[in-house]
């Protein structure tokens, strides 16, 4: 079904398949049930006064069938969930920190040292070019790259750290089949592997204030060489601006 936006994530292949099977199943059950309801209105044989056992047996048989259906849904859904959530991301994963702020997403790359520098709420100043409050006295923060768009290499696992500065935001990339809340005071993690290059909208899925609908950004999935070139360019800018 092409109601869903094109999928660009590794886990999205199995997810789309499972979702489509689920949708098809419940759609046909829906149709069957509605036909029964209409039938009750139009097909009206004279009912016998004696209660029919057959119908009751059908009732219990259908209930058993539904129990089976729910069990299958539970198990298949759980396997997909467990595959994504119940293991740590591999050590070679690209690490990016996502911060939601009314009404903007920021993406921080740790830079060549692989470590995020210290931040402090008192240093936060978007007008001064420091929306995340990076502490310039911390050497680890000097090479941190802060970007307004998320650029990632195709084919490599990604580990996002989700943060929020002010209120709860919902980090949502429909094309990557990804959604998780960014909750202030409680960093979260989100892992996935983008596989198809291209641009994907990033939205906010948790009402966060008057600018909620325009709190949007972009994920750009590029080839690994292009990704390295982009990182190098950004690194140069960071170095040039260093105090």
């Amino acid at each position, binding site marked *: 079904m092409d109601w869903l936006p094109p999928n660009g994530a590794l886990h999205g292949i199995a997810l789309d398949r499972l979702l489509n099977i689920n949708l098809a199943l419940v759609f046909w059950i829906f149709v069957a049930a509605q036909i029964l309801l209409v039938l009750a209105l139009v097909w009206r044989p004279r009912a016998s006064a004696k209660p029919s056992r057959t119908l009751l047996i059908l*009732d219990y048989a259908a209930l058993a069938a539904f129990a089976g259906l729910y069990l299958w*849904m539970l198990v298949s859904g759980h396997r997909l969930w467990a595959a994504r959530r119940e293991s740590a991301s591999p050590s070679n994963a690209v690490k990016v920190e996502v911060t939601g702020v009314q009404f903007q997403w920021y993406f921080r790359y740790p830079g060549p040292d692989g470590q995020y520098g210290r931040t402090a709420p008192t240093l936060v100043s978007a007008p001064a070019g420091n929306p995340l409050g990076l502490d310039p006295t911390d050497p680890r923060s000097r090479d941190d790259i802060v970007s307004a768009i998320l650029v990632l290499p195709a084919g490599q696992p990604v580990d996002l750290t989700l943060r929020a500065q002010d209120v709860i935001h919902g980090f949502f990339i429909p094309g990557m089949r990804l959604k998780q809340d960014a909750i202030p005071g409680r960093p979260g993690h989100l892992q996935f592997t983008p596989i198809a290059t291209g641009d994907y909208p990033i939205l906010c899925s948790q009402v966060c204030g008057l600018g909620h609908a325009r709190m949007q950004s972009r994920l750009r999935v590029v080839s690994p060489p292009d990704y390295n070139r982009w990182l190098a360019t950004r690194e140069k800018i960071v170095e040039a601006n260093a105090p």
Partner: protein
Amino acid sequence: MPQKFKTHQGFGPAGRHSLSRSLFTTEPRTLAILYLYLGLLAVTIGTLLSLAIRIHRTWPAWSFPFYGVPRPEDYLALVTMHGTLMIFYVLTVVPQSAFPNLVLPAQIGATRMSFPRLNAAAFWITLASLLVLLAAFFVPQGAPISGWTSYPPLSGLAAAGPGQGAGMDFWLVAITLFCFASILSSINFLATIFARRASGLTFGRLPLTVWSWLVSSALTIIAFSVLLAAAAMLLADRHCGTSFFLPSGLVLNGIPQPAGTGSPMLWLHLFWFFGHPEVYIVVLPGMGLASSILANFTRRPVPAYGLMVASTLLIGFLGLGVWGHHIFVSGMNPYAGTAFGLTTMAIALPSSAEILTWLVMLFRGRLRITTPALFILGFLSFFIAGGLTGPILAQPALDAYLHNTFFVVAHFHLVMAMAGVFSIFAGIYYWYPLLTGRRMSETLGHIHFWISLIAAYGTFFPMHFAGLAGEPRHYAQLAGPVTSFANLIPVERGITWSAFLLAAAQIVFIVNVFLSARPASRLGAQAGANPWQATTLEWSPTAHLTISNGPYQYGAAAGRKDDFLPQWASKNPV
């Protein structure tokens, strides 16, 4: 039967009450009428707000007369107030307050409520609550914008957005009052059910509506107590310097906030611990009514009475353990996601058992096609349509895509709002003779039903597709800086026109309600004492001290020439 009948409580058909009598009344039927008027006021405002929502989404540049083009915060205020009005003051008040006041004492053969003054106080507190809520529109910066779930810190900090100052305070006070009123009235219902049943009316002879109110009242006491506490804690965070829900390190508009020691996660858990049982509080009375009405209009007993009672109890019990499926994407422990997925799948079973039994009931006897029966068919149709997407959303992996999209909006508007409202309509058409001595017009009832059914599907079914396309809730406009759901505009336009039709169809209902009561209008008909030939005690013409029959002795189960044996009839009438 030309003469007015009186019920054994002596609450005759609603006459004209003087103001002071209404103000100090503890008479359940008068309170029921007051609750119905309150619900009518709330549903009217809530519907107008929803139409404003639809208009703005479809034609974002359209300027409202006397107002102008809505700002984004206006849109969010509309959504917040629409949800709050509908969920609390319509879908909770009517099935859980108006209907039990209307028939609960009668259905159990009670001569009075256990706590009549508590019960009456609950109405006036609910009214006060509604007025406080509506006042939020008129305070500086207007109504709150954080949605009916009011997640902190957005709801905890006045500077987080317009409407989050005085508007949010009014919202919280209104909810606090509402919780208090709901708990009071539920204590009364529970006590009445346990202590004031007529002799012989054992639990095995209770109509399924009474079982529903038993469970929904217990749920109300548990769930609303938690919401009451949460609302009080949030008020304390806002005004008393506590930080139950506020962590340290918050920076709002570039300004660091005072350090806190709490977490917004606490609110998410407390709110949804209330929020999910609330869904069953809304829909359980309708489920009980569906069983009663289907038994009546097919003239057959409820085939699996024990199964239905067990399902009702199980839904209530399991309903307390599924709240986590609302917050699968909050980043909670993945094992918790699995556990809540399991409990949610489990609760689908008793719901399915009830639905399948209703379907079986439809084919055990020939259905009498009356307006109450039609609306119960509509209730079933929506309950199935919305219920079926439940097990999809119960899978955390799939929910992680669908959460907070229009797919969920479609789901709960079908399974809770439309199913709830259709069961309310069924109840009003069915019990109208108790209040007026007359039946509502069948012709207008059929027109009302068919237009509403089609328009409701036209409104809510296409929302599934918008949700699958990834469209989030609470977006004032479809076109954003990066993405655009412009290709959904034809779908959105169709939804809007359907919503107009759905709202317009309710005019037919209003006309029917107010004109059918008057013989001079030539609408409706004289009802007589037991117009539906029902078995349950609210239709009994006199008080009966000893009950010896089950609630649904229709057809062969009546064991006599008539095809029904009322609960108030003596055991061996032949």
